[in-house]
Structures are given as C-alpha cells and as structure tokens.
C-alpha cells in the first residue's frame, strides 16, 4: 500500500481527488443567498390587455358616491354597473407609506377629471384597500380627504383576482355596455405628475381619438 502511495503517478491522482473533495466540503454547506422563488417580485405588468375579471363591491354608503358611480341601489354592485367608459382602479394599502405619498396626486387626477366636461361623465376612479379593513380604509379616506369611493379588501379577494403585488398599483380598464373589458393600463408605484398620468390614461384608453 505504502509503495503504491509513493508512486509518482498515484501521488498526483490522490492530490487531484483531495482537492476536489476539499472544494466539495467547503462549497457544500453554503446557504443559498437568494430569497425563496415564491417571493420573487414580477417585473412585468400583470394582465395588461387581458379581459378584466368581474367582481362585486358593496355600494358606498354616501349618496354622493353612489351618484358618482351611477348606482341606484344600495346593495352590492358589479364593477360593470359603474357608468363610465374608463375606470381607474387604485389598489392601495391604507397603511402603505407610498400610498400616503400618492394620495394627494390621485386626488389631483380626480379633480382634473371632474373639472373637464369632456371627461367628467366618462372617466371614474375607485380605490380598493388591499389587506385593509373598512375601519382602516375610512381612516385613509379621512386623513387624505379622498373624494372618490374607496372599498376594503381585507380578505385579499380582489388582490388575488387582479394579481396585485405592490401598492399603490393603478389599473385602467375600458368599460362598455357589457361591463369592464380590456385592461389598457397597469402601473406599479406612485406618481407625482397628475396631468401626465391623466394624459396617459386618455391616450391609452382611446378617449383622445374619440374626442377627435
């Protein structure tokens, strides 16, 4: 055995194997540094140009907000019942600091729409509070003086349905007589330029061409 070990060729072989073994031992227990795949954040817009899924919401308690959405009843309503050509949905979190930051700019968008006769009855905004209770959504509404209807999604039904992974997320949906149709706009993250945001909505929805 000793004679076999001392042979020049065998020595080299043993060194090779020892080196490989060393790398294997050192490399083996290294933890994987990347987070679990299930927590990967998608980078592409979700559901863009796809048909918008139908869901229902409780009618707002306020008469003014029901009138804004064109609703006559006080029970649950389907998004297709909202009287508009374009529906902007803000998926927000009542406790999300980025949504707090975005709130005044979204209010600006609402004011700009309401101030334009060519848009007023055609473009509507609603907010859906992801993982937020009605109490928390109400606090958000009061704190940031949100003038458009807000709804709570504390059981994550709408969050899952619309594949929301970030708040705020803004979704633009074309609406016709048969209800919400194509998602033409999807934006993750807040914005600060309300007029630019509204221009994009008008351009991408096709409302600008209709006006011509």
């Amino acid at each position: 055995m000793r004679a076999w070990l001392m042979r020049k060729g065998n020595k080299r072989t043993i060194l090779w194997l020892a080196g490989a073994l060393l790398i294997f031992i050192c490399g083996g227990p290294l933890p994987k540094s990347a987070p679990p795949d299930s927590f990967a954040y998608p980078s592409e817009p979700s559901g863009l140009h796809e048909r918008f899924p139908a869901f229902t919401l409780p009618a707002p308690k306020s008469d003014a907000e029901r009138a804004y959405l064109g609703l006559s009843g006080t029970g649950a309503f389907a998004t297709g019942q909202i009287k508009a050509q374009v529906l902007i949905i803000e998926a927000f979190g009542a406790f999300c600091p980025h949504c707090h930051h975005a709130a005044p700019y979204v209010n600006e968008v609402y004011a700009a729409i309401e101030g334009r006769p060519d848009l007023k009855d055609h473009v509507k905004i609603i907010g859906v509070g992801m993982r937020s209770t009605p109490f928390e959504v109400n606090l958000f509404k009061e704190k940031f003086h949100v003038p458009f209807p807000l709804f709570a999604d504390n059981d994550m039904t709408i969050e899952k349905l619309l594949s929301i992974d970030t708040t705020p997320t803004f979704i633009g949906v074309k609406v016709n007589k048969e209800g919400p149709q194509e998602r033409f706009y999807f934006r993750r993250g807040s914005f600060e330029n309300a007029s630019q945001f509204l221009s994009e909505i008008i351009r991408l929805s096709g409302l600008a061409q209709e006006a011509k």
Partner: protein
Amino acid sequence: MSGQKRLRRVLVYFVGIAIVMITTAVTVPGSLMSGEAGAPSERVVAPPMEGVPNPKNGSLMSGEASAAPPMEGVLNPKNGQAVDFKKNIFPVGNLKPTDSILRVRIGGKAPNFSLPAVGGGRVSLSQYLGKKHVVLSFVPAAWTPVCSDQWPGYQIAKDLFDKNNASLIGITVDNIPTLYSWTRQMSSEKLWFPVVSDFYPHGAVASAYGVLRSDGTAERALFVIDKKGRIRYIDVHNINERPPLEDLIHALEKVNK
C-alpha cells in the same frame, strides 16, 4: 508509461473535474448547471436606488446626500415608473406565528424600561405614569414585510390615539442607525411617536415582556398600559399579519372610559 496506466490517469482526471463541476453547480445559484435556468432573473432585483435623480430637485437619493424628504419622486430612469422601496424589503417567508412565552399578564404591572430613542435621549415607561396611557408596539425587525407597513399606519392614526389620551412607543431589537434609516422612509413627516432600540443588551425589554423569539427578533405584539402602569390589553399577534387598527383602538377606548 504503459497505455493502460495513461488511460487510468486520464480517467481519474475526468472524475476529479466532474466532481468540481458538480460541486460548483450545486453551491452557486444561477450557474449553468444549477437546473434553475431563468430563475435568477426572476428573483428580487434591487431597483437602482443609488444616484437616481429626484426629478424635482435633481438631488441624488442616497441617504444624507439628499436634501429632499426621503419619499419624494424617485423615478426609475428605465421605465419612468416610481422606484418602489417595497422591492428592497427582504422577503422573510411565512414564519411560525408566535415563538415565545409571555412573562406578563393583563392586570399585572408593566415592566419599566429605559431605552435609547431614534430622536436622541432615552425613553422610559415611567415617564408616562399618571399622564397618558401607553401603547407598546413591538415589531419583529426593521426592513421586513408587514413591519414596514404597520407604523406608517399609526403615523396617520395620531388623532385616534390623542382622542383616547394615549401615546405610542415603537420598539424593535434593531440598533439606532438601522432604525433611523428605516423610520425616515416611513413618512415625509417626522413620526409623531418615539421609536426605541432594544438592541443592547439584545432584546432585554422584549424578553422581560416575554415576546423575544428564539431567533432574536421580537413578536409583533401590542400592549396597552394604563396611566397607573397596569397592563390592560395584550395582543401577541401572528407575526405574518398586521393587527387590525380597530382592535387596538377599541381596547384604548375601554381603557380610557
């Protein structure tokens, strides 16, 4: 050297190289042989934070170098969309809901403490005795999901605390520099409540209340302590979920009756 010997040596070399390649493939994520083709690009990629100009004032978003409030207009130059700081939050996965044994009880005396605060100085529970009810909000760790949304919510709920003659103290086991950076991005305004560091001796206050988890983080726990220093409400919440605000406010309303 005979042909048979040479063949044997070549064979051994190949085996050695194969072992090295397999080892590399197993331990280096994203390597060609890892069997996860395409996966690395799907994983969390930090948005370009450093040197991203603020469109309002042109300053760079890099900590103290920026004169603008931390939340202001950070746009991704690639797509013009807002850089979402949430994508920088480390995904911790689903954790064991609770992992500690309470050492206090409702009706019992709340353990006093004196901890360094982010804003400077120290904050002790005894400062509030006879003046205000106190909500102690332990959160597991800075820069983690859920925690990063909890205190910004309390930031907009100040009126509800005031209405119930209550103050709030935020506690984590992180050190002051970490808490400084973390709390600064929670709001464009200064937080109205003190945030204190239970970092050293590590988690001593969390341990006194029985909410120090076995991994050294704290539970997501709320304690309402009345003006006399008695514990009136305890919610050691599922660490994976944010406690509903109304539960806390209703508890405060009861205490303040």
